[in-house]
């Protein structure tokens, strides 16, 4: 034991806003934890509840929808 739990988080980012802001964070060299795995969507509204459930059941510890 003693290993700190690091959640792996599935992130849905909208191409027009939050994905762009994640790019901007990179261009600005903002440093943040490496836990998220980004899926681009054309709109955060594309995120079907099924995607959230499938994410959790396939190994992700959390799902982040940002748009």
């Amino acid at each position, binding site marked *: 034991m003693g290993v700190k739990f690091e959640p792996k988080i599935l992130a849905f980012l909208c191409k027009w806003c939050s994905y762009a802001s994640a*790019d901007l*964070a990179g261009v*600005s060299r903002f440093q943040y934890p*490496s836990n998220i795995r980004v899926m681009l969507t*054309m*709109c955060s509204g594309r995120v079907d509840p099924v995607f959230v459930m*499938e994410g959790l059941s*396939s*190994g992700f510890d959390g799902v982040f929808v940002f748009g």
Partner: protein
Amino acid sequence: MMSDEFNSGLADGRAVYRLYPQAVPTAFAVKKLDRAPCLRACPANVNAQGFVQLIKAGKFTESLALIMERLALPGTIGRICPHPCETDCRRQEMDESLAICALKRFAADQADWEALPLPQVERREEMVAIVGAGPAGLSCAYHLALRGFRPVIFEAAPEPGGWLRYGIPAYRLPLEVLNREIDYIQKLGVKIHCSTTLGQGRTINDLLTREGFQAVFLGVGCQESLRVPVPGTEAEGVLWGGDYLKGVAAGQGPDLKDQRVIVIGGGNVALDVARTARRRGAPRVTIICLENAFEMPALPWEVEEAGREGIEIMYRWGVKQLLAPAGKVTGIELMEVARVFDEQGRFAPAYLEDQRATRDGDVVIMAIGQKANLKFLTPEDGVALTPKGLIQVDPDTQATSRSGIFAGGDVVSGPFIAVAALEAGRQGAISIERYLQGMDLKEGRELPLNPLTEGNWNPLPKGQSRQLRVTPDILPAEEWAKGFSEIHLGFTQEQAMSEAARCLSCGICSECLQCVATCQAQAIDHGQIPEIVDLKVGAIILAPGFKSFDPSQYEAYSYASHPNVVTSLAFERILSASGPYLGHLVRPSDHKEPQKIAWLQCVGSRDAQHNSYCSSVCCMYAIKQAVIAQEHSKAPLEATIFFMDLRTHGKDFEKYYQRAAEQGVRFIRSRLHSLEPVPGTEDLALRYVKEDGAVLNETFDLVVLSVGLEVAPEASALGRTLGVELTPHRFARTSPFAPVATNKPGIFVCGAFQGPKDIPQSVMEASAAAAAAGELLASARYSCSRRKPAPAEQDVAGKEPRIGVFLCHCGTNIAGVIDVAALRDYAGTLPQVEHAENFLFACSQDSQKTIRERIEECGLNRVVVASCSPRTHEPVFQEAIKEAGLNPYLLEMANIRDQDAWVHMAKPEEALEKAKDLVRMAVARSANLEPLYKQKFPVTRAALIIGGGVAGMEAARSLGNMGFQTHLVEKSQRLGGNAWNLVVSPRGYDYRGYLENLIQTVEHHEHINVLMNSSVKATGGFIGNFHTVIATPGGDLELGHGVTILATGGTPLLPQEYLYGQHPKVLLSFELDQAIAARDTRVAAARQAVFIQCVGSREPERPYCSRVCCTHSVESALLLKELNPHMDVFILYRDLRTYGEKELLYQEAREKGVVFIRYDLESKPGVAGTPEGGLEVAVRDPILERTLVLQPDLLVLASAILPNPMAEVADLFKVPRNNEGFFNEAHAKLRPVDCVTEGIYLAGLAHYPKPIDESIAQAKAAAARAATVLALEEVAAEPLVSIVNQDLCQGCGLCELTCSFGAVHLTTVPGRGFRAEHLPAYCKGCGLCAAGCPARAIDMLHFRDRQILAAIHAGGRG
């Protein structure tokens, strides 16, 4: 280091910087001003700024390499050079010049010369001879060796070095320094034959004709002492300076122990001789010098040091004779100098023969000059000499009169400084290479840079404290004369680096060229020079923009001196997340979070001393900044705007102003008295005068100057070059009827160069200028464009995915954090991946070529690129795979740069883990991708314009002129609309003439179909393919059109107040115009006229400014004054909004006696009729603080402008309107004439109240936007749309409710009831319908459930 322009000087920048950090953050630029004055002062143009900067950075080896690009003998020159570079150093303007020479020496002394690398160059076989191993000869040999030659030097003396060895004493230049540098030159392949004399028997001509040499460089210097006919010089004990030094250097020379020595001469040689004599034991050394201490040619520090060695100098004495009674010198007889130079400044000494003196001495050394010894030249050499006995050369090429023979150094120039001889040698080497290659010696040759008196250099830093130069250690003075040890000991590393840090980086980029070596993409080319390109064009559009007013010229605002007084542009950067403080709202001086900020309006605007016009945009941006500052501030922030008139005349601006006031932004109508720093704090005290005359003081943490807009001098110069007429304020002059046309046909203008304006107006004008150019160039449309051929596409249907993964290092951007090779190996193990490969830059041309080749070689049918963001680079790679025959939608990207390497820079392992997951997800998704095709629809090349006012007609005329069929629908029986009300011609502009002409043109235009008394009945379709039914007097007409322009106009409010309609002397603005035009007796008889502004505007039920009324009333007031100068004219206003150059009319009106009285909404003027049939207007004057009663004969109401009631049209075309009924544009700033629905555009009063010039500009803009569609053969719709499976659909209609774009609706399918139907042309691809469909009957192409789920499953696994 330089000031960061983008951050308004709030941060330090570097010479390599992001040019557009927000717009194009990944593109860099190098900023270069004029080359630094040190470089320009140096005869060899040594890049002093460059090597100094490298020393500052601790890059000593690189520094020496940069010096040695030019200079063969860096340690030598770093000791003996009189350093003209330091004389021109701009640091002197602050304190002391930089110790450039000592830094150069430091760079050379740091190096291990034994280990210095030998450049690998291609060997060249041509043989070159060099005569003389002095500075010129050695330099020539060095530069030839760097070019691959193996030159041979012939030197008469036993050892190489020339004057450096035999003329410069070792306490200035230790022999080991010279030796190590000459040794290095020999290691480069230079052969030196010493003790080899040329001349009779082996001539220069022999070298060329018999010995196989193909070129010769002569660098023999000035070795011989100048002799003067002074009696007694033949006596024993008389020596010659050059010979004496040479003897000492060769270990010979007389012992001067106990000898009294007299040295004749005032130059550096005399000083070297005297100081050498001291070291050789002479107890007393006297220098006899013609000149006084200031005229003396010797360097002042040499003179000073000689004094410290006990050497006496007798100034202004000449030699009469040497006294040698017994053939051995015993002394010298001197005569006083009357003058040294004549009136022309030429050396012509004259003496006072009767003023004599004698001086005893045992040895006299004559050091009065050196000359060339050219006895080795023979007539057959063919080398011409100058009258002064020097070799004659072409100053640009060092070429002598004989082809193939070059010369340089003192033998050409006469005795001069060594660095110049080195440069002559370098130029000789360049010429010899050109000569041997058969090139022209001059063509394209790099020209030497000479000093500039007025250069464009990095400004001196403000507020930096004095910092004197660092002085290197020095041998104790008492040791100096004891031997030949070097006196100056050179810098330590720390000293050198701290001295180098004093450099001001005058040229910004120093051209140290480190970036060239570092850039893996080899993207930096310092050799770029401005090019002149000839372009053939049919029209020119001028859009040079504005510069913001520089307030440092106002002392009153403390701007230049106080860090907490910033310009609005600087404040914009302070607020920005990418700004100097990363978006934290702090003030510059101490980074404290401000609690009180003041904005001062009209800085550099509405000011007779600077720019008398109004800059139009500052009020609005100040309010915006105040609101955003309040939002950014953690603690409550008090934001106060000090203004004269608040001008929020733009669309929806007034509402913003009201909201800001409600949110607590303070607005204080005032005039600034003074702005002073508060002693002992970083705060600022503002003293201001309120409207009622009260003087108040208030302290602020930060003061923002709302600086105005002005035309940059470069822009007005451009205008003048093109012959464009400018206004007195240097804006391009235009007419209200042609707002984007200059006086020169074919030259158009837009943006702030036409007049100060905000973004929406600039964008409109930009499109309008494009329309104007498009009209002119209609016949040439597509004549210069080319179409790219489409490659045949591979059919991937039913084929097993074969995926190629291409990974990008992005230089070090990705590879510096993520182990890309490991990632590639990992990618290769993933299912269905056939090939994985990494590239330094995946987006480079050659990488893309490789990707295309791999698609073919490996039979790839899906491609994953792991690099940067698809937002920027997806089109690039889509194009690449398309050219290789793959459908572009078979590409998937993994963003391992922007969203991985760049944000986890300190955690390479975590970044690699994340990259593996992202690549795995991308691979899984790509396996599920399918080809998609853009849907194409032919465009109906016709326009429908609704509204026959000026806006509609101008749009129709513009489109018609571009050759597009245009239907213009007007509901009434005549064209012209509101423009018929413009019956007077203020400022000489004939509105009526313009209107009649426009109607004529439109009615008779071959491409315009005018439909009078007509209206829209029904419409449908989409961009490029609209169908509209028009009800006309002749029945319904169905029209097909590709675009629609709504120009439905506006109408004046008919007020219910101020006795309008009840009293004959109360008129609306346009009614006054009509009365003036009709010479109405009410006008002619009037002794007093009163205007009331904002009648119905800026009221709670109509919270907008009608924009045109202030200017209209001021113009009318001026007209009345013109008709009857004795008429009293009053304008009662709330804020006077004569924006832009209209402000000048306001000024003129005040000068002509029009009285402006302000009122507030709470105390509106009272209007009452008198029993005599007159009027009484009561208004409270806020300055006098009392109520005035006026008795006008005319009361003019500036009533609001309303949009025409258009609910029906808006509903038909699905165009949203704001609360006041004006049509909404798609984006208030960037798409000011587009409607949200594609293919529909707006213009004129239907959008917002505006004067006729702005309506025309907007109409032309709408035409330009429409033309972008009409010029296409077909419109392509993105294939990223949803699809409906009607077999699964249950007809619930949730999708129709969800869709904001009307792209899915229910339809009746016979036998099945309601089913969803999808209209792809309207679909934006958001996928809401797919996510919401309970029956899972809708899927989103390219974002299908299975595609997304594959990625999710893959991502969760790892």
